[in-house]
């Protein structure tokens, strides 16, 4: 069924590196934080792609690079046939009409000096002035549109002259959603929209996002670190680790048959609110912390913490293997060849040989 749907967004080998500079007079570049390091995926119309991962794995950078808030170091982001990375300013502005973001912190993402009306109408006013809307709107029409949006996201339209500080966290997130909807976008990039909210409010916002998707045929890229939230909202899920996608699969498939050892550990570590299940579960407890993304590693990025590590993994970066059924995983365990018996020396020798060949 999913094959019939149109592909809306293609991301190809996207890289986003942030330079580390010495500062001072010379300001030499001494390295780079490889926040996003070569990721590729496609997003189909009407689906929700969930991105999970621990802090610092590059989830937020990914969506910001897609929206061109950072100019990517290399790679392509193709939205409806237009490569955003190479697009001119004017084309980009037009494309942005269809790509909107919702941010994590509803306290920091709204200007405290603007009223709700001016926050929600700002995108409309800007595009209207430049004549980029389908038809020119009058002030009254914009006003009506703001009221319609506020009611749609569950805010009383009588509050349009109030300031953000007069609202609670959940209501502010609704303002953020109304602002994102103002230009009638095709795709919404939601960067942890519910993680700053309380449980009872979180459910309200998740339900609202679901309703809007059905009503307006929206496509979401949804970031969260809470695996249960991702499962609830997503049709497909990408798991990220240190700037790379380690596993990408349909939501049901990923949660039933996690393939990558990291995904398995993540799923087993996420608490389930039921004491009987929670206490009987076998947890895979990972040791150690996420390493810093400032070096190129010769082997698999996860190998230092992996419970199923083989000598082969320390010096070979795993490619992406297709397990069928749209399930992709970057782990040597799923290659046809069995690497578990290869000793450290042999693996190292093989890696060295490859290196010289490349040279």
């Amino acid at each position, binding site marked *: 069924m999913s094959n019939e749907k149109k592909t809306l967004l293609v991301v190809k080998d996207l890289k986003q590196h942030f330079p580390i500079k010495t500062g001072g007079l010379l300001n030499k570049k001494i390295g780079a934080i490889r926040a996003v390091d070569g990721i590729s995926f496609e997003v189909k119309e009407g689906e929700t792609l969930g991105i999970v991962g*621990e*802090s610092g794995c590059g989830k937020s950078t990914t969506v910001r690079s897609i929206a061109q808030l950072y100019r990517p170091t290399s790679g392509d982001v193709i939205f409806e046939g237009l490569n955003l990375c190479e697009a001119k300013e004017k084309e980009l502005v037009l494309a942005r009409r269809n790509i909107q973001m919702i941010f994590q912190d509803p306290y920091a993402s709204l200007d405290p000096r603007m009223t709700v009306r001016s926050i929600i109408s700002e995108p409309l006013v800007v595009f209207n002035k430049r004549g980029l809307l389908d038809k020119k709107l009058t002030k009254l029409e914009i006003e009506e549109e703001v009221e319609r949006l506020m009611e749609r996201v569950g805010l009383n339209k009588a509050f349009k002259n109030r300031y953000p500080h007069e609202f*609670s966290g*959940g*209501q502010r997130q609704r303002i953020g959603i109304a602002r994102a909807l103002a230009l009638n976008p095709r795709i919404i990039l939601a960067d942890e929209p519910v993680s700053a909210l*309380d*449980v*009872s*409010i*979180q*459910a*309200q916002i*998740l*339900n609202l996002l*679901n309703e809007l998707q059905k009503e307006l045929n929206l496509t979401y890229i949804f970031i969260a*670190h809470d*695996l*249960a*939230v991702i*499962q*609830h909202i997503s049709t497909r899920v990408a798991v990220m680790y240190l700037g790379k996608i380690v596993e990408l699969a349909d939501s049901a498939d990923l*949660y039933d048959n996690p393939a990558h050892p990291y995904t398995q*550990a*993540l*799923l*087993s*570590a*996420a*608490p*389930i*609110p*039921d*004491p*009987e*299940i*929670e*206490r009987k579960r076998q*947890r895979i*407890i*990972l*040791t150690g*912390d*996420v390493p810093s993304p400032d070096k190129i590693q010769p082997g698999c990025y996860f190998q230092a913490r992996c419970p199923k590590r083989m000598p082969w993994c320390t010096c070979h970066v795993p490619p992406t293997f297709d397990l069928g059924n749209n399930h992709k995983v970057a782990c040597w365990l799923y290659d046809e060849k069995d690497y578990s018996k290869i000793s450290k020396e042999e693996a190292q020798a093989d890696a060295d040989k490859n290196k010289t060949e490349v040279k």
Partner: protein
Amino acid sequence: MKDNKQPILEIKDLQTHFKTDAGVVKAVNGVSFTVNKGETVGIVGESGCGKSVTNLSIMRLIPSPPGKIVGGEVLFDGENILDLPESELREIRGNKISMIFQDPMTSLNPFLKISTQMIETIRLHEKDVDKQEARKRSIEMLKKVGIPAAEARIDSYPHQFSGGMRQRVMIAMALSCNAQVLIADEPTTALDVTIQAQILELIQQISKDFGTAVILITHDLGVVAGMCDKVCVMYAGKIVEEAYTYELYNNPAHPYTSGLIQSVPRMDTQNKQKKLFSIEGQPPNVIDLPPCCPFHPRCHKTMDVCRCALPPTYEVSEDHKVNCWLYASEEEKAKAVADAAKENDK
């Protein structure tokens, strides 16, 4: 087994109020619960419900003014902490009851080495320990909480540690004086899931090894399900339900508790319904709450009596207490409504 449990910390009708320009904020408004030796008690609730203030009040760490503990008792081993003079209080703080805070980034001093901070803690509480011995003990504690190469790492500064490691250091410091009660205020909220699993495992292990009682404050119902023996659910400064963990999850009595449990998306349910149950509306403003059930505007089982009188505590079953009019008899409800009407007429 239940019978030979000894209470180590009893909180009785604790009230902490804050004076603000807008009125008196009754952050904690009559909270009572008991912690037994070696037991883990969870306190759950949304932000602003008074979880943290309750526990700061136990340690008397409320900044005053504007805050003030206006009533109630905190009995530690039978002694009321609230009546003690400051000097005796210092004997208990850190020594017998210690605390882990939410944010491991800000609760360590960035200017001092880990060793300095740990040795200081130990020597403050046990005056006869010399520096060398305190250092040895710190290294031992760091090893216990799973810091690799503790001998070398003890001379690092906090910024050289990651979030999970800093939280381990905090736990090591909190336990270095063999405290009998450990108050953990959202110890894993700032951490990732895999690190969270490590830290929770550690707290559980330590509680078992040392027989430490733990008060775990959290908003994550999943964490509570895995860790706690007993759970208190707080709403607007009051405990609305208290029960053993299994009982609470199987038979939530208060509409708020059942709403909370249903509104969390769950990973393990196969046929997930697309729409989540959600509690409508916002948590109430705790300034000048009227004398009625604070949850009634959001409750889906509201009755007339909820709007005019505070619900008393009922025992639904043994050790399962709930504050809700649903469990009252008809006469009781009628009487409460009549009383409220009389009060209004005056």
